[in-house]
């Protein structure tokens, strides 16, 4: 999940962007510093209530560490230069992306089906621009 890298593009498109992670506020501050995204709204949800409400799932071992997942994750790491470090929170909790419109509807959702399943920034941006036009 690298949406925060394009936060200026999302802002220019007229949508807000918020990142939610497990852990505590100090983990969010570490994330902001490590990714150089000062000013980005980064929230923490140690109880994972929002993950549940968003419909995200808990992975099986195969969905975390199966050969296809590891191969895809390795390719992504080599491409982006980003490697997973020590995790905080529930290690099998998967994430995802929702776009929420001002009327509370959810015009776009991509929830991870395994640990390597991430929506592309371009796909989310296209959906965000469409949501702005419809709002």
């Amino acid at each position, binding site marked *: *999940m690298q949406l925060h890298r394009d936060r200026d593009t999302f802002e220019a498109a007229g949508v807000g*962007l918020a990142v939610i992670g497990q852990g505590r506020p100090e983990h969010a501050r570490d994330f902001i510093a490590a990714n150089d995204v000062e000013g980005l709204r980064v*929230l923490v949800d140690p109880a994972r209530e929002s993950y549940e409400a968003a419909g995200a799932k808990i992975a099986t071992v195969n969905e975390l560490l199966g050969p296809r997942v590891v191969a895809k994750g390795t390719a992504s790491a080599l491409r982006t230069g980003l490697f997973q470090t020590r995790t905080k929170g529930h290690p*099998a909790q998967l*994430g*995802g992306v929702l*776009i*929420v419109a001002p009327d509370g509807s*959810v*015009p776009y959702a991509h929830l991870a089906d395994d640990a390597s399943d991430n929506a592309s920034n371009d796909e989310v941006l296209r959906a965000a621009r469409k949501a702005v036009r419809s709002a």
Partner: protein
Amino acid sequence: MPLGASTSRQHTRPPARADALADLVLHDADGKDVRLGDLWSDRPVVLAWLRHYG
């Protein structure tokens, strides 16, 4: 189960509406309360849930 993984394959459940999210209050990086519904009150918002920090 290692890593707290699920013993059976789960399915994602994307919501049609964000009503169940709206009244949740999370902390930001400064420890301040943020009600999620306030994030989309005047414009669409992209909410991205990370697997984990790190």
